[in-house]
């Protein structure tokens, strides 16, 4: 196996891994000053190595005692990796073989007396449980998910909306980006989707209680039984008794006859856990099996030692509740089959089904029962009187004290405007102004009508105020302006509310009509928006990847963003063309109307909505986003050019 020169207790020697017989770590000294060291792999409780960044490459193996080996060769780092790698595998293997033996060793706390251990960073051998967990995690690893083309295809086929977007983006992608680059970019922003899809695919449907699913139907007096091959197999698997009955009876009986008899027999009722009544069909052939146990070898599954005490029904015998004053419990007794057969049957069915499911809780090879932590977790803690409070205390420091540098007059955003007046001036001004209304308190109180300044019947007051160039409070013009602003805001909110409704009903045609766009233009706009957002995603991921190898990609993506702008413009143009056509048609209609009737109809081209203006209005956030992306790119590019030249 692998060998490497290594120091042990400051003595030069050779460390090697032996695979003959029992696996072990061997260290032989070059000189005879020390004895050779042999550590059997099964004894190893902990394995640590120095991190890659540390100057020395050493390995620490904890068994009965702790041994530290420092690798001394030129390729010390590689040797260290190789040795720990192999060792870790061996340890995991031996752990899983040990199975139900000693409890999983907990990692001993790192001793600080060693001097060297300060630089030692934990790289502990994973206990087998965490190792499997890690293996599971690995299947959801980002890089692996990105490489899995099959998974991506299956996600696309299961998600039409995503597929649509993928194809759209693929069609719109610039030629300069290869399919591979495109793929990796597309999926790198959707890793979470891939991950959940992978998890979804990893799960299969389990077995089900087949007897309750198969239901014979009575049609035209005859009985029709729909049963598939898989269901028959499942019945045999779940109910060995049925298999036996089938084997012993089918040669005389026909297969279909057997099944139709079976599904009306008392035997079925018993297997389903239903109560058998006298009115049930009597079937001499099948009824003789009634007293047989469905599953003679079922008992083997009950591993008494593995049942934790607190879910063990047998335990109820010992904890006699009647003695404590409770009524006898008749559901949870171990041998009352005939009383509540359905409970037992359902329990047994669940148990059988669970057999096919890989255990999710804990390690199959772990110690029997459960480990200490699980046991503690399952204890009914809230019923205990003096339970430790296991909440994490969050210590919040007083923030005001932390950041005592509160804002003064000069740090504020309005400092410049406020600085024109001294506090004294401010105070006197405000007090003087307010004294104007509070001082008149003496007589009849405040004359509100005069104070608010609304003089409704005097239209000339506005003209006066306009000539005075100082807008009076409450003047008609300011009130009209306020009304306009509020109306505008209300209209905006109205449109937004429709947005919300539409997102639920997904009737975009109404929205398009409201905006004065045709459905096709609106759809194109939606699509353009989607792809552009997609490209913006790519741009920022690549931009912030900090990977010089992808620098060329960024340049290309910026070109793509430029093209997106062109695409938006194209949509705007087509919308404008549409609007022009609409206006022309209306004008023509008006002309014919005038010719026909000799009267002229009023027509205002501005009342026709739609066109480039609407499109640009909708796309304005998008255009702004592209602009800011390009701006930032160009700024950073200039800076870096400057650096590289200097």
């Amino acid at each position, binding site marked *: 196996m692998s060998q490497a020169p290594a120091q042990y207790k400051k003595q030069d020697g050779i460390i090697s891994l032996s695979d003959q017989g029992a696996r072990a770590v061997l260290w032989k000294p070059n000189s005879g000053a020390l004895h050779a060291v042999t550590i059997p792999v099964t004894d190893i409780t902990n394995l640590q190595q120095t991190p890659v960044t540390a100057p020395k490459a050493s390995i620490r193996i904890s068994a009965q005692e702790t041994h530290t080996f420092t690798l001394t060769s030129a390729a010390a780092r590689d040797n260290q990796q190789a040795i720990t790698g192999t060792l870790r595998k061996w340890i995991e293997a031996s752990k899983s073989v040990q199975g139900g033996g000693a409890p999983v060793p907990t990692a001993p706390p790192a001793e600080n007396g060693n001097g060297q251990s300060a630089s030692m960073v934990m790289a502990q051998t994973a206990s087998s449980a965490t190792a499997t967990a890690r293996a599971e995690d690995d299947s959801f690893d980002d890089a692996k998910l990105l490489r899995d083309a099959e998974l991506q295809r299956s996600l696309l086929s299961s998600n039409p909306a995503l597929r649509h977007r993928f194809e759209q983006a693929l069609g719109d992608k610039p030629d300069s980006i290869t399919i591979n680059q495109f793929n990796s970019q597309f999926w790198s922003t959707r890793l979470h989707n891939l991950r959940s899809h992978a998890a979804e695919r990893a799960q299969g449907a389990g077995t089900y209680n087949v007897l309750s699913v198969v239901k014979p139907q009575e049609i035209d007096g005859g009985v029709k039984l729909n049963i598939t091959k898989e269901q028959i197999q499942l019945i045999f698997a779940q109910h060995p008794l049925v298999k036996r009955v089938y084997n012993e009876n089918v040669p005389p009986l026909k297969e279909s006859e057997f099944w139709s008899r079976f599904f009306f027999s008392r035997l079925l009722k018993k297997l389903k856990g239903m109560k058998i009544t006298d009115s049930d069909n009597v079937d001499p052939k099948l009824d003789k099996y009634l007293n047989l146990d469905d599953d003679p070898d079922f008992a083997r599954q009950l591993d008494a030692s593995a049942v934790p005490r607190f879910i063990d029904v047998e335990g109820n015998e010992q904890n006699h509740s009647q003695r404590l004053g409770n009524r006898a419990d008749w559901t949870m007794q171990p041998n009352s089959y005939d009383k509540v057969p359905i409970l037992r049957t359902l329990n047994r069915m669940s148990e059988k089904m669970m057999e096919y499911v890989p255990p999710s809780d804990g390690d199959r090879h772990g110690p029997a029962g459960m480990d200490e932590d699980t046991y503690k977790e399952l204890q009914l803690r809230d019923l205990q009187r003096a339970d430790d409070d296991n909440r994490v205390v*969050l*210590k919040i420091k007083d923030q005001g004290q932390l950041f005592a540098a509160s804002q003064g007059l000069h740090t504020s955003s309005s400092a410049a405007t406020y600085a024109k007046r001294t506090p004294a001036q401010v105070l006197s001004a405000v007090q003087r*102004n307010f004294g104007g209304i509070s001082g008149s308190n*003496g007589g009849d109180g*405040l004359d509100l009508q005069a104070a608010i300044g609304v003089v409704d019947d005097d239209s000339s007051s506005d003209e006066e105020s306009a000539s005075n160039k100082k807008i009076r409070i409450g003047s008609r013009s300011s009130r009209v302006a306020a009304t306009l602003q*509020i109306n505008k805001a209300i209209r905006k*909110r109205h449109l937004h509310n429709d947005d919300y409704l539409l997102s639920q009903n997904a009737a975009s045609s109404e929205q398009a009509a409201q905006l004065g766009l045709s459905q096709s233009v609106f759809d194109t706009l939606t699509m353009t928006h989607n792809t552009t957002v997609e490209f913006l995603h790519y741009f920022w991921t690549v931009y912030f990847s900090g*990977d010089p190898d992808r*620098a060329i990609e960024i340049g290309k993506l910026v070109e793509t963003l430029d093209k997106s702008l062109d695409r938006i413009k194209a949509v705007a143009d087509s919308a404008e063309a549409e609007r022009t056509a609409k206006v022309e048609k209306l004008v023509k209609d008006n002309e014919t109307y005038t010719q026909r009737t000799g009267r002229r109809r009023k027509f205002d081209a501005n009342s026709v909505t739609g066109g480039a203006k609407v499109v640009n209005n909708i796309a304005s956030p998008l255009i702004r986003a592209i602009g800011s992306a390009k701006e930032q790119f160009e700024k950073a590019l200039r800076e870096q050019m400057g650096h590289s030249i200097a």
Partner: protein
Amino acid sequence: MNAIDGTDRHVKADDTPPPSLLAIVLDTNPHAWAHLSNTLPLSSAVANLLVFINAHLASGNANEVAVIASHSHKASWLYPTPKSATPSSSSHNGTSNSSTNPPAPPENPNKYRPFALVESAILSNLSHLLTSTTEAHLASTPTTLIGGALSLALSYIAKSTLLHSPLDTSLEATALSALADSETTHAVRIPLTSRILIISVSGDLANQYIPVMNSIFAAQRKRIPIDILKLAGDTVLLQQASDATGGVYMKPERPEGILQYLMMGFLPDVTARRSFVMPSAGGVDFRAACFCHRKVVDVGYVCSVCLSIFCEPTLPDNTCLTCGSYLSLRTAQTPQPALLPRKKKKKKRVAGGTDSTTPGGTPVGSGTPMHG
């Protein structure tokens, strides 16, 4: 059964809209009002506000109002006048005579008495507040204590809600069920619909980010909309307040038309708003203020334990400034974008290497690694 007992047991349900409580937080920051004195002086604003309050009181018999001044150094009640003034303050204010015993409202036969009561209380309390403000108060801060005023408003609303349904809390059983499920008992209460209107003129509210945010969340939970009339100053925090609580946000282009804004935008109470399309501000600035420098940040860093927000990734000792838990933000930093391809440099290096090796041939080639 009906044939025997012929009486009509139809109980007439009370279908009048529930009473509405309007809590107004008036930002009385003197700096800002002095700055605004040319367009909208404080006196006019208050007069307009009084008209608005009268309109609110007139639109429902049981409607109530509460007015709180958010001043530069304290938040103080304008209406209702706090009942029990502490002895020290009463003796202190003995000369002014206004705070201890609010003067009886002037008898004016042309004025509805409840209006006159509110008016005189607000005016006298506000003038008292302004006279008690000193220059030192103003010099110390440019902004207003909106957080405290909001808390006052919320606690007043909570108290009034309780007062409107005294039966609920008296029973112990309901107290228990209230513990279990506060939402259902809330629905059972005789509803008092409340809302808060903040008339704000100050900016720089980011340094009260935390208390204001807490108030916002409390209001959100109690379904109290916070309306904002922003006459001046930057908008960040309050816009979020109205958005989160479903209130109305208004930044008037023409503050002179304040009465129109108040009447059109803010008069409908919560019950009426269900049938209305209320004006909206459109885009909302959702940025938060960082906890370390009270700056409004675009991209910030968040402690995973206590959710404190920081504006820069370098924290002292890699611990969260608020809760002290370990927080290393090194990995959260985005790498510097590399926009120049590395290939150029590589080429140069490769070219340099070939240059040195080819002319020398093998002996020189074997010699170079030794130098290197």
